[in-house]
């Protein structure tokens, strides 16, 4: 049947891609756990992901906290419930906005860079050169990025939590005339350990997703500059979608009734 052939081809291609991705993920994870490690490469990636992403994530967090306070005030003022602003800011930032927005910003900044760098190494035979120099590309290129992604994004999100809450505090105190001490008191009254911990766990998962997508698409890129460009786009888009999807799953696991 001429209609069934293209469907079968698409299905087989889907199965092939799924299998390839599964194998890549399994191999990458196993190299994260098995020595030898490359401490210098891991440290380099940690600085790249953690330190250099700090300004971008910090700016995103502070403006998000500020907007959140302003918008909450607009809504809550109608019901004389302005005291809930602190709760909305602290819960939204720690549970959802800091991890998701930091994940997306890092996907744009680091996921794209990883994909472009590894993709260029692939099309210029640098990855083949690694193998001929008795160095496993998964150990030298992929594992350090995954380890750095998993460890640094929670730290970034922890900083983003503080900066985001501070953004809400700034607007509430200096624009909406809240009492600073009572705003802080309300913030800490509503904040529980699980709010921060769930955000940090999400961050670790998002860090893994961003690094994995960047590495996977870069590693399998082909066809020169155009192929590298396509891999970079795919890395950012797939990481972003997976961040949203996994955010739902993790939220349901932590807070679902």
């Amino acid at each position: 049947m001429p209609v069934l052939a293209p469907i079968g081809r698409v299905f087989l291609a889907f199965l092939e891609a799924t299998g390839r991705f599964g194998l890549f993920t399994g191999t990458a994870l196993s190299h994260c756990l098995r020595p030898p490690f490359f401490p210098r490469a891991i440290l380099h990636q940690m600085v790249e992901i953690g330190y250099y992403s700090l300004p971008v994530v910090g700016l995103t967090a502070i403006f998000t906290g500020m907007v959140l306070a302003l918008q909450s005030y607009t809504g809550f003022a109608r019901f004389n419930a302005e005291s809930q602003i602190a709760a909305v800011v602290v819960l939204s930032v720690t549970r959802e906005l800091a991890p998701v927005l930091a994940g997306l910003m890092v996907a744009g900044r680091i996921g794209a860079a990883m994909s472009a760098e590894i993709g260029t190494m692939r099309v210029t035979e640098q990855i083949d050169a690694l193998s001929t120099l008795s160095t496993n590309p998964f150990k030298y290129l992929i594992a350090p990025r995954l380890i750095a992604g998993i460890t640094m994004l929670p730290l970034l999100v922890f900083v983003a939590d503080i900066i985001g809450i501070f953004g809400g505090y700034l607007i509430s105190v200096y624009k909406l005339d809240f009492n600073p001490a009572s705003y802080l008191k309300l913030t800490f009254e509503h904040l529980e350990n699980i709010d921060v911990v769930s955000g940090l766990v999400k961050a670790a998962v998002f860090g893994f997703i961003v690094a994995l997508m960047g590495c996977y698409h870069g590693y399998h890129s082909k066809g020169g500059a155009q192929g590298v460009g396509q891999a970079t786009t795919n890395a950012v888009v797939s990481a972003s979608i997976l961040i949203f999807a996994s955010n739902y799953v993790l939220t349901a696991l932590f807070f679902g009734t």
Partner: protein
Amino acid sequence: MTDTPAKIQIRNLHMSFGSKVVLNGLDLKVGVGESVVVIGGSGVGKSVMLKCVLGLLEPEQGSICIDGEEVVGMSPKDRDRVMRKFGMLFQGAALFDSLPVWQNVAFGLVQAMGMELQKAKEIALNKLAQVGLGPEVGELWPAELSGGMKKRVALARAIATDPEVIFFDEPTTGLDPIMGDIINDLVVKCVRELGATTLSITHDMASARKIADRIAMLHGGRIIWAGSVADIDHSNDAYVDQFIHGKAEGPIKMEVRA
């Protein structure tokens, strides 16, 4: 065929990508200390053959023996042991952009042999000197080098670990004739000093004549002619004649699509 013991023995190698058959029963022997150059048009499978020997591609069928040891289907650990015998000069040099030149040359010494950085740097600078580059070049980044210098650095990296076997993938491609000849001279000099076995692929006949003890022609997925450099001009093979004289007319029809 040579009478020396085989360093590399390829038998009945098959490889295809989708419906395109690239290698179709390739047989080739490279003797110990011998320099064999495989010639052939673009897209006939020279690089695929090399990648199969290096373990970067797994052949569908056939056997590849290094020092009598079968390497097809070898475990990663054993493969790693065999890879330590190899050095490779890539067509585009394939230098690591993120490392300065001396670290590129010292990479195999540090990563594969676990040598200390300072000792590895000394050796790297010596190898750079062997290919005519001063120590100041060692501090440069690959992006700062010309095409010829990149090839020299790649050659220094290929010989850094004193390998038993060196592979050359189009060593003169993209270079002007003078720089190409300089690279050929360096290849011959370095290989002679090391006493290494070499397997090269090229479509540059001047390069092939200079660096080869023996030339083999790859066409249609298999070796169709092999002989000494002196014999190639009297091969009486229409394919070889067309290729070495670079004629458009003849039995070889160039494929437009890869």
